[in-house]
């Protein structure tokens, strides 16, 4: 199951602190971790809500642990303030959002890709985020590991934007040779390095609590030493830009896009997460019927793959954006692709369900005439 693979990925990545509040459809992640963690000297705690789950994850991260929480839409909303805090204080942590139908309580067990903008813009203020979108059970494993590697490399909170389909999906997975998997450990400061623990666009080393660094960590506007300055707007400018550059300067290392059959493609289907499974299937069927259709799958949702999508737009006549919502990543695609190619949007026939292959094929036959 996707959620189980996520739990295993976290353990392989070195995660040893997991905090959780029960919510459908993310519960299986916590159930597996609560069984497995004590065997690997990990701490599992069920907190009183999602606000305290993410808060304790951030605390545990400063105490020297790789730390994670998992949730779904409503809980993800409650976490937003402290996700902003994690970004502001440059705290590595992973948040798994197994998306469900909203708004509000919505339909808990059904999937929707409704949290794309919540992932990047849910907290107040100006900040960057990294979000990955797994499409398979295998990717619930590999992308959870990658999320930890990115979180530790860039000292930030990374979102794994899964959904009820991928989280509850059962399929066979080949677990690769664990010893060959790349695991990133966080950079600690040299003693007496001048205590510049924050705001380096090439990522400052992170002082761990209890080792004598005596770090000052605050969600208020601060300088490189962590000292609060809430009077001078120059510090606001500095913080906001340093945090932004830390991620966007290293976009080439962060952003991953997968493409298929694009060489001669006239139409590109662009999808991510569970929807990319249908897109992948349909592209193959379309090719059999002689339609020149290719596939763009966004593995990284944020930062948005603007140069990669822009490049595709220059090659093809039309990009069809497929999402299980009313068009969220669509606006980012239009922003970079509209001047080179037609951008169309194809939601599923019924929001909250998968795009049926036959429905997408009919659509392709119409536009490829």
């Amino acid at each position, binding site marked *: 199951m996707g959620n189980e693979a996520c739990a295993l990925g976290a353990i392989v990545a070195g995660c040893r602190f997991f905090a959780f509040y029960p919510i459908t459809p993310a519960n299986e992640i916590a159930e597996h971790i609560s069984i497995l963690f004590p065997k690997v000297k990990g701490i599992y705690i069920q907190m009183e809500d999602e606000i305290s789950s993410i808060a304790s994850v951030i*605390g545990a991260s*400063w105490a020297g642990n790789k730390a994670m929480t998992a949730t779904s839409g409503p809980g993800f909303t409650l976490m937003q303030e402290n996700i902003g805090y994690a970004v502001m204080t440059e705290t590595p942590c992973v948040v798994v959002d197994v998306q469900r139908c909203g708004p509000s309580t919505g339909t808990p067990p059904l999937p929707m890709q409704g949290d794309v903008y919540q992932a990047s813009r849910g907290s107040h203020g100006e900040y960057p985020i990294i979000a990955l979108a797994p499409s398979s059970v295998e990717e619930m494993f590999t992308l959870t590991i990658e999320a930890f590697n990115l979180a530790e490399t860039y000292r930030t909170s990374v979102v794994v934007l899964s959904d009820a389909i991928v989280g509850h999906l059962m399929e066979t997975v080949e677990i690769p040779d664990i010893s060959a998997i790349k695991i990133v450990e966080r950079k600690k400061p040299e003693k007496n390095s001048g205590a510049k623990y924050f705001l380096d666009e090439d990522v400052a080393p992170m002082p761990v609590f209890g080792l004598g660094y005596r770090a000052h960590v605050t*969600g208020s506007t601060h300088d490189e030493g962590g000292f609060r300055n809430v009077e001078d707007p120059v510090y606001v400018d500095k913080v906001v830009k340093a945090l932004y550059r830390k991620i966007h300067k290293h976009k080439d290392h962060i952003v991953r896009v997968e493409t298929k059959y694009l060489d001669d493609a006239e139409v590109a289907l662009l999808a991510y997460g569970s929807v990319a499974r249908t897109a992948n299937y349909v592209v193959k069927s379309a090719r059999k019927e002689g339609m020149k259709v290719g596939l763009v799958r966004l593995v990284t949702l944020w930062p948005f793959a603007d140069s990669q999508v822009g490049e595709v737009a220059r090659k093809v006549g039309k990009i069809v954006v497929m999402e299980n919502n009313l068009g969220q990543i669509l606006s980012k695609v239009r922003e970079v692709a509209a001047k080179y190619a037609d951008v169309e949007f194809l939601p599923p026939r019924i929001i909250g369900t998968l795009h049926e292959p036959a429905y997408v094929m009919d659509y392709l036959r119409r536009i490829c005439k």
Partner: protein
Amino acid sequence: MSQVHIHPLLVKYAREGAYRQPHCPGCGNGIVAQCMLRAIDELKLNMDKMVFVSGIGCSSWIPSPFFYADMLHTTHGRPLAFATGVKLGNPELRVVVFTGDGDSAAIGANHLIQAARKNIEILTVLVNNRIYGMTGGQVAPTTPHGMKTKTTPYGNMEYPFDLCKLVEVAGASYVARWTTFHNRQLVSSMKNGLLKKGFSFIEVISQCPVQYGTFIGIKDPAELLRMFRDISVPAEKAKTMSQEELEGKIVIGEFVNRERTGLAEAYQQLLREMEP
């Protein structure tokens, strides 16, 4: 030329460049800070192994950035949730939370109840000035009934929390209340809390001459301290008094001091049992 005398506790425990206090003149936070540093000094605790966690509000600036130790200044109401992660994440650390009545009796009250129930080994010092000081004197869940504030211009229709009772029934291992007048008792209580292997809670009723003082018409900090002295009743004596007699009084003392395994220790026991 005048000579500058720096307090020896400041030399020993203050973060370089953090000598300037952000609190209003006459605020009780300075007393609370000094009591904590005295307790740490008398116990000879290693500041390398101490973590201070605070939320948002006047009390949060007691340790941040002033105390020279690892310091996590967090979001409004959540310091106990952050501190739970710090303590479970490294049980060797001694974790102290500074919070206020807005922080942990209103927006974060559930975290206070749950941390007490979990009996996590954290000392919480809740500085209760019975009003929202930093934001300009709005009513708090600790404001006395009938009192006028910025947002209860016709008098407070609600009743205040008894935070010590709340934390006691929730399951804390150590519970005490003092006022800023009772600083010697407070130091001794803080020492007990720092050494306790469970959730410890100390409520400090503190003077806010600028906001609270304005609304009750006593703006002189010394006079507010004398008032605390006069209306305080020791816990033992309070037991013999009626509800009417206790009206407007502050019951002080140690209410709970019991032994129960703390959560971090319980978890470590499990990890030892699970070792192959």
